[in-house]
């Protein structure tokens, strides 16, 4: 595995939310590893992944928190909303209940993030065409009414997965360029990282834990 280059100019923090079993972890895995995890265990608390993408000629590192969908972890997962620049809200196109819960997820997100957080709605499992339970048009309308970006995707085939993550980043980047998103504001979830590889100034004082034996 080739080591990822450690050069990028921005860090965007994302969270992935949605009901249990809608495929949040699989979406993350498909995005970071380009592989489908067929027997993905239930997430305990939170998982984490990163990937560096290219948006408008800028290298951007996405730090993605994948949260547990189970209700019992809600208290833990809520502490990860804060400071997210992008929120991917996922439902399962083959299970209407997961779609019905979207409004409560949206309320949570709006309450716990800042107004500039980009919320992207993903209808996962689009490959299971004959089991469809939520029409595209219906979800599209919900997204439009609430000002969300929307796409139907499949973590299994990889269809639209890349797009969802990248489009979110593009939107965030646009907000930065428009000046709608203040880089210096706390909770913006975006950090400028001007440092370039090869910068050695602070490295020698790199964290060395004290030890006592």
């Amino acid at each position, binding site marked *: 595995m080739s080591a990822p280059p*450690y050069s990028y100019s921005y860090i965007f923090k994302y969270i992935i939310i949605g009901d249990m079993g809608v495929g949040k972890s699989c979406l993350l895995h498909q995005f970071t590893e380009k592989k489908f995890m067929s027997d993905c265990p239930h997430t305990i608390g939170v998982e984490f992944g990163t990937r560096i993408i290219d948006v408008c000629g800028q290298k951007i590192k996405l*730090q993605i928190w994948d949260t547990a969908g189970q209700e019992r972890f809600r*208290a*833990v997962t809520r502490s990860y909303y804060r*400071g997210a620049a992008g929120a991917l809200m996922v439902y399962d196109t083959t299970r209407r209940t997961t779609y019905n819960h979207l409004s409560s997820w949206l309320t949570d997100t709006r309450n716990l993030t800042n107004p500039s957080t980009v919320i992207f709605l993903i209808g996962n499992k689009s490959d299971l065409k004959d089991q469809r339970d939520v029409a595209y048009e219906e979800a599209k309308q919900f997204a439009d009414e609430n000002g969300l970006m929307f796409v139907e995707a499949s973590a299994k085939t990889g269809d639209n997965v890349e797009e969802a993550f990248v489009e979110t980043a593009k939107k965030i980047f646009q907000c930065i360029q428009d000046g709608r998103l203040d880089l210096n504001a706390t909770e913006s979830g975006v950090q400028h990282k001007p440092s370039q590889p*090869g910068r050695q100034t602070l490295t020698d004082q790199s*964290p060395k834990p004290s*030890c*006592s*034996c």
Partner: protein
Amino acid sequence: MACLLEHDNNFTVAIPSYEIKNNVTYYEIHVTVGAVTWSVSHRYNDFVELHEVLIADHCIAKEMLPQKKLIGNRDPGFIEKRKVDLEAYLRVVVNYLQRAMPLVLAKFLDFDKYDITYILQNMAYKCFMDGDSFLMKSSEYTFNPLQLHAISERLQKCCFPTEVSNNQHDFSHIIDFCQKLQTVIVRGGRSIIGTSNIIYNSLPFVMTMFKSVSELHFYNIHLPNVCDFGSVRLTVGCFVINNSCIKQLTDALLCDKVHKTTESSDDVWNKLVKIDFSWNELSGIDDGILLAPNLQNLTLDGNQIRKIENIEKLPKLTYLCMSANYIVVEDCLYSQLKNIVFLNLSQNKITKLSPFAKLVNLKTLDLASNSVSEASEIRYVSCLPKLEYLVLTGNPLSTIIDYRVKVFEAFGNRAQCLCLDNERPSQKELDTAAVLRALTVVREGKTPITIPSG
């Protein structure tokens, strides 16, 4: 480990004493958060510096700090009074700013050394600033249990609202850094941390934040504190635990499991090829070894093992090092060690070489500092066809006159390939051995038997 967020009703500061060093008075501040206490000492000038920042940024009234005094400030009465005033000052400031303690105050009180929130802030900042450049050069990092405990708490507990004051303090940076590490070293200890009453080895932690670790080293760790190995169990290839008092292999390989049985396939360390559990309290090689079925390299120096057992369950093992144990071998080791190429049993209680006679794959045999005394024992190892390195120094046998020559004599034609006690034979030794062999032939009228009949 202190956590101010959880104990904000149980937080006190006091200045019980002072100390004069090099004509400067240091006031000893005692901080108590819940059950955790620590002390930190500052001189008056440090208070002044702190106060200036607090006035500027946090609306603390200017006249609150006891006044400066240029003359007579070493008078014990004055110092005593100042001590009381400074304590009152700190109490008011802390009380006023406790909910959102500014970093400057937290640092003044050493919260960044003992409190989860501030330790994490510190680590996050370092990971953000230096994490990438560090990872470019190295994929190895040494943690202490305090740091791992802080990360674990953050992963499992609900809300840590203080991070938000600065994006650079975001917890993501720490996890990001941890996930990329390939070698993780954890050094614990039974000592207290700094001036606090926290003990390193009293802190539980998880390993779930490490996703690509191939090498894991624990030094001086209380294994029962490792609550969850997470995916480390699936990725790690080399596992070192030294000086950690483990008594059984399962203490290490199953320390995060409730049921210490070796049956579940979920608990197997499939990628593990190298184990070094030296300087512990292992009394034997128990069934726990089944949890590392692909092991190639096993080191168990400095334990309390008496017997070689269960090695036959490791078909891929070729390297075995069990120096400084209490091993006695009586019977043939062939069934246990037939695949072993490198064997180190130095500093044990071995008296005989006959058990090694059939270990035909041995290339290196180190039996230094055992109790082999009879020169006649040499013939049992001289027949091993691949043996190139033999160490017998420190045995009574090695004090016999012409010991080296006797060994080379037993090895016959292969003597020149043998490195004995880290030394190749000299020409003189080879010549003498050859003469001795020739004499034996003359005396007995036949080639000496070097291969034991049994």
